[in-house]
């Protein structure tokens, strides 16, 4: 798929939730809507494909990657943080095609990728049909496998506060997503809540009710070197899935089970995960 150059004068989000002020935040036209994208750092390029928490502004992991000498580009999948709702995405195939367009639009095709959770699932699926989409891959707790004896937990049949506890080992680690900024104007407060709801909805659209779509039938096509990372305290995908992925991926070059880290381990242990990624991708 031909690469699409990014506009020279990207539109920038102003106001909004105010959490993107430390980054270059922009929106790119995408189909009938737009995609949000944040970037930071200088150096070799790396893409971050987010998980269920989306890209909630100044999360420490992007900073940690930047501090490790990376120029990070973090696009938001349709429906997630700042991107338009995923209209027209009926099934996994539609999502993968959208992701393929997204990486071209963002200018990150062929770059190494650190992908987490739902983003890791999408990255794997994309890699099966488009080997050149990414260089090396660091995958943090990807969805996609299902063991009925050790099932993936349901992160939606719960209250908002309990879902927060499922996403990271330390609930405080996801403050940028779940908490409202102090002194936020009332109208922005409402929109922040709506943004959060839409991000959660997009996750549901991807992985409800059972996040297994047959990847094990095509995983042999993923020839990229893959480093697997999993939080030891992942309350959604059991840590045993780390071994399951290792057994079926053709080219695993590293396996890391990170203590004191939950499902989105990069929020719990940003510096450690960034160091793992840097070691794997350098």
């Amino acid at each position, binding site marked *: 798929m031909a690469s699409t150059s990014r506009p020279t004068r990207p539109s920038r989000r102003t106001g909004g939730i105010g959490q993107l002020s430390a980054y270059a935040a922009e929106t790119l036209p995408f189909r009938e809507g737009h995609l949000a994208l944040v970037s930071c750092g200088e150096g070799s390029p790396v893409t971050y494909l987010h998980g269920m928490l989306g890209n909630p502004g100044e999360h420490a992991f992007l900073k940690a990657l930047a501090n490790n000498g990376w120029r990070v580009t973090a696009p938001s999948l349709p429906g997630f943080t700042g991107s338009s709702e995923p209209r027209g995405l009926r099934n996994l195939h539609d999502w993968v095609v959208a992701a393929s367009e997204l990486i071209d639009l963002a200018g990150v095709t062929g770059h190494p990728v650190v992908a987490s959770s739902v983003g890791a699932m999408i990255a794997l699926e994309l890699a099966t049909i488009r080997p050149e989409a990414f260089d090396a891959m660091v995958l943090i707790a990807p969805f996609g496998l299902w063991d009925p004896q050790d099932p993936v937990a349901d992160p939606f049949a719960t209250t908002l506060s309990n879902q927060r506890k499922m996403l990271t080992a330390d609930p405080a680690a996801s403050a940028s997503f779940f908490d409202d900024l102090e002194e936020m104007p009332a109208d922005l407060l409402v929109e922040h809540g709506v943004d959060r709801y*839409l991000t959660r*909805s997009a*996750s*549901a659209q991807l992985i409800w009710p059972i996040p297994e779509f047959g990847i094990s039938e095509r995983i042999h096509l993923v020839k990229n070197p893959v480093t697997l990372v999993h939080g030891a305290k992942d309350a959604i995908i059991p840590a045993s899935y780390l071994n399951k992925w290792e057994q079926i991926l053709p080219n695993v070059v590293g396996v890391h089970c990170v203590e004191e880290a939950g499902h989105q381990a990069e929020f719990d242990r940003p510096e450690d995960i960034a160091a793992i990624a840097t070691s794997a991708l350098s």
Partner: protein
Amino acid sequence: MKSIFFHLMPYPELPPDFPDEHRSVWVDIDPALYDPEVGNRTYNEYLDELEFAASCGFDAVGVNEHHSNGYGLMPSPNIIAAALSRNCPDTNIVVLGDSVALYNPPLRVAEEIAMLDGITGGRMVAGFPVGSPMDTIFAYGQNPATLRERYHEGVDLIRQAWTRDEVFSFNGKYNKLRYVNVWPRPVQQPHPPIWIPGGGSVDTWDWCAQEDLVYCYLSYFGYKAGLKTMQGFWKKVQETGKEANPFQGGFAQFIAVADTEKEAWDLYREPAEYFFNTCLHVYAGFADPPGYKTPNTVRAGVEGMVERAAREATARAEAKKSSTGGGYPKGLSFEEMVEKGYVILGNPTQVAEQVHELATTMHIGHLMTFCHFGNMNKDLVRYNTEMYATKVMPEVCDLFEDEYEDLWWPQPLDQPARRDVPEVSVS
């Protein structure tokens, strides 16, 4: 005003400590709690109650659809409607309704309602709810982010199937059908009236107002709490420039009538407490999956009726866990239920006054009356039903009838065919 005898068909024998020992009456309720013999007795008693209500002169009887729960044992309301269709020859039947998004394809709904309309000679009302999150998302695995879109497509398919006079193709996002050709065709033309039960979504108001559909707010929490929601709907109707015809609205209300107010307090306490504290003991995690509500509803800060019930149930359960002492958790008291208007209670005059106030305040022409609720025994159901039908309904049935036309009421055949099973003759 029309009075519809509405039955939820709850499982009546959940243990008294159910809210204490089980997290939810819906979705993951323990299957071991269901006794098939109780089920057998219960279904037959409930059908008796519906038929009795029909014989008492209610304008219609009503049924609905729910899954995987002890709150209501009607996964298929059309089966119950079929059981009633022959035994209640003069009563209209309101199916409120078939959860369209759960049928594959939704054409099945069009067919079954047409069958029922055929059997009854045109006495059906077709209700199409989006469906509660417990039913649609958790029991039936629908995706919350796409449920409403799937539902609207299904309703569109059903309406086309009833009204197009040709075999046609339907190329939807969720339903792809090469030959759509519903046989039988409904008796009522262009189709049975369509009512939309809602629980608080602001987008449903818009849709009903634009499409001239009946908006029924099926609230558990009485008319005092429901007023704001109905006002929101009527505002949308007025914004379309249409007349606010009360027969475009519907509301559900628990009724507890007795010869005296004191008797009513004594008779209806237990079934009311069973309903509100056990039948509504829904785990809050099942009530609000992301994507189920539209962004507009989130933006408006509207809490759905189910969401509210679940939130309160979970809060009571958690409060119980954190308190000392044992025993049955303190639930909602009957006094609170009556004081807040969840249950209209009293002697016939008092009940008629409150129903009158409800109807006029909320501008409602269709009242779904819950004369059965909770674990009410069949004798009390019969009593409550007969009291309402003979002593309350006559006082309120004329409301709105002179000023407005009910454009959303069944139009049966003048001389429909009836049950005509000959006696067996043995020579």
